[in-house]
């Protein structure tokens, strides 16, 4: 097993203790709730759109360090991106989190700070903590403007 500090990297601990873009996002156009019934983690993702662009992303919720940090990092990474870019980033993060832990994660450089989540792949029981916010983001982007989408689940 890797060291605990590979999982709980400084970036993760920092975003857990001081989550960015936390709280209801003013003027949000899209919102979705995510829930992990296995552990009770909840997250709500808000997206403010400027056409095809994500003008702002915020989140609320309660959960472990991994799910909180993942959501917080998500909001920073996605602000200003287009929807197709967001989808590309989702794919890259998903591949990193769910890839074979015995092989080094590929292509983490372009993920920037999000690469800090790579340690999660060594902890199969925690992968869903990290993916919850990302699945919820997808649900938000697919939701009808303003009003809520069906809650998603990573179970």
């Amino acid at each position, binding site marked *: *097993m890797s060291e*605990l*500090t590979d*999982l*709980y990297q400084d970036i993760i*601990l920092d975003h*857990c*203790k001081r989550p960015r873009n936390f709280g209801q996002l003013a003027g949000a156009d899209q919102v979705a709730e995510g829930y992990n019934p*296995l*552990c*009770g*983690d*909840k997250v709500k993702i808000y997206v403010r759109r400027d056409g095809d662009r994500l003008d702002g992303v915020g989140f609320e919720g*309660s*959960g*472990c*360090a*991994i799910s*909180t940090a993942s959501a917080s990092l998500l909001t920073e990474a996605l602000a200003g991106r287009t929807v197709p870019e967001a989808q590309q980033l989702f794919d890259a993060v998903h591949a990193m989190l769910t890839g074979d832990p015995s092989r080094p994660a590929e292509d983490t450089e372009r993920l920037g700070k999000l690469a800090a989540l790579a340690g999660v792949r060594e*902890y199969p*029981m*925690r992968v869903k*903590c990290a993916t919850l916010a990302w699945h919820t983001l997808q649900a938000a982007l697919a939701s009808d403007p303003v009003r809520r989408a069906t809650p998603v689940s990573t179970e």
Partner: protein
Amino acid sequence: MTPEVAATATLDVAAVRAQFPILQTRVNGKPLVYLDSAASAQKPLAVIEAEARFYRESYANVHRGVHTLSQRATGAYEAARARVARFLGAPDPAQVVFTRSATEGLNLVAWCYARPRLAPGDAVLVTEMEHHSNIVPWQMVCEVTGAKLVVAPVDDRGELRLDELARLLTPGAGSRVKVVACVHVSNALGTINPIAEISRLAHDAGAAVVVDGAQAAPHLAIDVGALGCDFYTFSGHKVYGPTGIGALWGRPELLAEMPPWQGGGDMILHVSFAKTDYAPPPARFEAGTPHIVGAVGLAAALDWLESLGQEVVAAHEQELLAHATELLGAIPGVRLIGSARAKASVLSFLVAGVHAHDVGTILDAEGVAVRAGHHCAQPLMERFGVAATARASFAVYNTREEVETLAAAVAKAQELFA
């Protein structure tokens, strides 16, 4: 072991541990400290070998053949039923139904006892500290019968509010309570409920009492007569036995009135296309080939546990609980959830600033296995305003040193998140 020896002996933990091969496992390079027995207990050699021996020497289907092995297997299966009856203080093995689990025992009572008796205006009373397995079956039955689910609350210590329970049982509370379904020992808090008193209150109000004993069986001496309940169920795997086997005890006159549960082989007297006559209990509730080897393993587990002496085991576990309560309670930032005066060896706790799942992962890195989550008791978690707790549970094979390893690991979690 004679009772005189049992009453004065202290537990030889090293000798007990030697009977659990899995305790030699190393986890993440550290010796395993298994503090998750409330989720499922590890198995002693007595159980592992009884199952293997049965498969090697005695295995065949039960209640079917006239051949030697079938008779031998039937004998072992029915001897296991008698063993369970003795464990529960039940006078007659025919009052014991083998089930898949405590969950199945509760579902059986919900559908076969309660459902035919419930109508709009009636209620099923559960407590706020129930496991989901003692909530959801009742909700399902209430949905099809139009009965209501009412909930007796717990206080800040995690003790059942008996005054509120009594009030809910009175006609003035709005609905006729027909069934009281209550856990004997809370899996999330360790609270031991006063079942005898609850039974008295319920019976005075004309309600039957169903007890979920899954968490009590490994820790307490159980006597269904003294408890005064109408049904009592527990599972094998929490009492050092196999998974997939449990038992339900019921009052014989109630079992006799109940319609079958599932249809199939073994639960009939005679089948024709026009009509089927059902077997009397317990066979009526055991359709199909049962978990024969599971029953044999469960009997071996009960033999093994009783050979240690119930009071000796309880004293050991209480000592571990007291030690853990003191050590964790002394760590600033650690909050213990559940401080009932009567508690089994379960300790739920929160670490300020560290989510329970992170506590669980960090403790695992130290070799310490605890449960982290809502413990299948989400309404109880809401009562205490938390989403999840970490829970350490102590069994007969745990040591004081392991409790100290737990406390040190919790301190480590705090350091990492400091």
